[in-house]
């Protein structure tokens, strides 16, 4: 296949009519975020950067879990691979940070293809558990191979040679750019052939294959894209925090949080996961400020509440009429 054909396969599809005011609102919000560093600094810049980061991870997860319906709980392994590749290339080889980030993302995508070929054949729980196992295996290798990766003590990256405020602003813009890239990728996939194929796979994989979708390739491509974006984010995270340890960058809770964000906004939609990430992170940030000791408890309660009350996301909730009786009816319908 030529490159042109691949591009067509990935992104071509029915044109989506965006309404004029939707575009205008989008541009205004985008410009607003671009201008924001002029007015805020320090704490809120970092908070927004971390919200962007979660939105990117969630958006990337959405490609494999939202569109294709594969519960990749171990997706965070790509984050760790991106982070560690960046760290290792900067420290051991002396690459500039952005080269490390790109190489890390490419490695993450290659790793996704390599392990995706066998384990994307597994379905349901087995796939979820296989991804958890892969995450665990890579984390343990990073832990035990201390002479190279720094092991459980973690590893410190070279500090950026610029003023700290402008460094944080730069990270802010990088994360924002990555977020735009993630939204664009999700949008192109959603309207393209790949998106149709993935949704068909999610709804009924056997039927999708019977109607001519080559499911293995589609799933591997989707996971590789997801891994690439997650790997990029991991690399930037490593440069941003300039200290990483296995327990931090392979933390399964990041993936669980991303799943909740995805569901909160609406899985398998373009903007839903991003909105979910903003909602949950803002809540988490305000809660964190209030109750330092029990914020994880509250996060747990939020997770349970989201799963039971709004499993289809807030977008879906707004589209329909919200009422208590409708919520209760919904719960009754889905319980046994």
């Amino acid at each position, binding site marked *: 296949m030529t490159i042109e054909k691949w591009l067509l396969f990935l992104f071509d599809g029915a044109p989506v009519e965006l309404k004029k005011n939707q575009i205008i609102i989008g541009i205004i919000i985008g410009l607003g975020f671009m201008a924001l560093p002029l007015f805020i600094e320090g704490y809120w810049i970092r908070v927004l950067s971390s919200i962007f980061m979660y939105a990117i991870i969630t958006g990337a997860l959405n490609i494999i879990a939202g569109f294709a319906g594969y519960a990749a709980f171990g997706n965070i392994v790509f984050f760790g691979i991106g982070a560690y590749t960046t760290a290792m290339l900067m420290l051991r080889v002396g690459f500039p940070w952005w080269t490390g980030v790109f190489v890390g993302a490419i490695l993450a995508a290659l790793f996704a293809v390599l392990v995706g070929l066998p384990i994307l*054949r597994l379905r349901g*729980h087995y796939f979820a558990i296989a991804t958890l196992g892969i995450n665990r295996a890579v984390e343990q290798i990073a832990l035990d191979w201390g002479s190279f990766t720094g092991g459980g003590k973690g590893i410190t990256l070279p500090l950026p040679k610029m003023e700290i405020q402008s460094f944080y602003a730069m990270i802010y813009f990088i994360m924002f750019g990555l977020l735009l890239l993630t939204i664009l990728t999700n949008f192109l996939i959603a309207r393209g052939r790949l998106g149709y194929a993935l949704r068909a796979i999610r709804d009924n994989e056997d039927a999708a294959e019977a109607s001519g979708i080559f499911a293995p390739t589609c799933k591997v491509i989707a996971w590789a894209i997801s891994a690439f974006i997650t790997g990029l984010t991991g690399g930037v995270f490593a440069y941003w925090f300039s200290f990483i340890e296995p327990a931090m960058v392979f933390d399964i809770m990041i993936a669980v949080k991303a799943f909740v964000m995805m569901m909160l906004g609406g899985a398998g939609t373009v903007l839903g996961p991003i909105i979910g990430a903003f909602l949950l992170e803002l809540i988490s940030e305000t809660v964190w400020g209030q109750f330092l000791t029990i914020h994880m408890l509250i996060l747990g*309660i939020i997770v349970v509440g989201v799963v039971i009350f709004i499993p289809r996301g807030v977008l879906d909730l707004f589209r329909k009429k919200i009422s208590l009786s409708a919520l209760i009816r919904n719960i009754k319908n*889905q319980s046994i």
Partner: protein
Amino acid sequence: MILQVLLNGIFLGAIYANIAVGFSLAWGVMDVINVTHGTMIVIGSFITFFLFKYVGIDPFLSIPVSMFVLFLIGYCTQKYLLNLVVKVGIFLSLILTFGLDLVFINVVLMIFTGDYRSVTPSYSGTNFQLGQITIPYIRLATLGICVLLTILLQLFLTKTRTGNAIRATSQNRQAAEIVGVNVAKVYSITLAVSAALAGACGSLISMVQSFTPFEGGFFIMKAFIICVLGGLGNVLGAIIGGLILGIVETMGARVLGTGFQEAISAIIMILVLIFMPKGIVGSKYK
């Protein structure tokens, strides 16, 4: 020497099997991956710790107490939370149990703080010699209780009415519903039994190693590996998987040292998933 290592492996494997039996029951019957299972084990450990330290009850006598408490926790979890989403698909139940896990961990953390705890009755550390082999009393008793619990579970599943209903629901939920099984109730009992086994396991583990509220993730990873290795759908799978893992880990630590142990067992699990997805003796609960 090799006999001693093998025996240690069997002791460890018995505990592993005990971890996985309950977990595999919930997974096999309801298709629910109960991530809280690890933390339920930890709760069992803390119940034993509390009763031993503040009430002065012998750890072995506290096993029924932790089983009872965990039975109630499991029953309520399934009845009021998991039953609401279990029909929709694996996504929701998996994420729900992750969230619930956070809640459990932090409640335990608030009550008992994050310190390392251990239960050390007067007879801990005592052992007897059998030829060349050293056998600690606690390990032996643990092995015995694990075997006893497994036999009881098997009898419960095959000889009682409720057990039959559980197996019927596992084979075909709709058909079971048609012949009059109250599926919601059966599910609640299934998770309750699974949690009770976790409680017993926690009580036993509290005497063997020290623990914190965060230990659950370690147990759950072992449970994954054992269930994948042995296969779902019967008690035998968990026993075989647990024993294999216990012996392999002990032997591996002896021969290769402890580095990369976790990574290797995770990789073995993935390979088994790829090449032998049904495990060694996997099937439906029959």
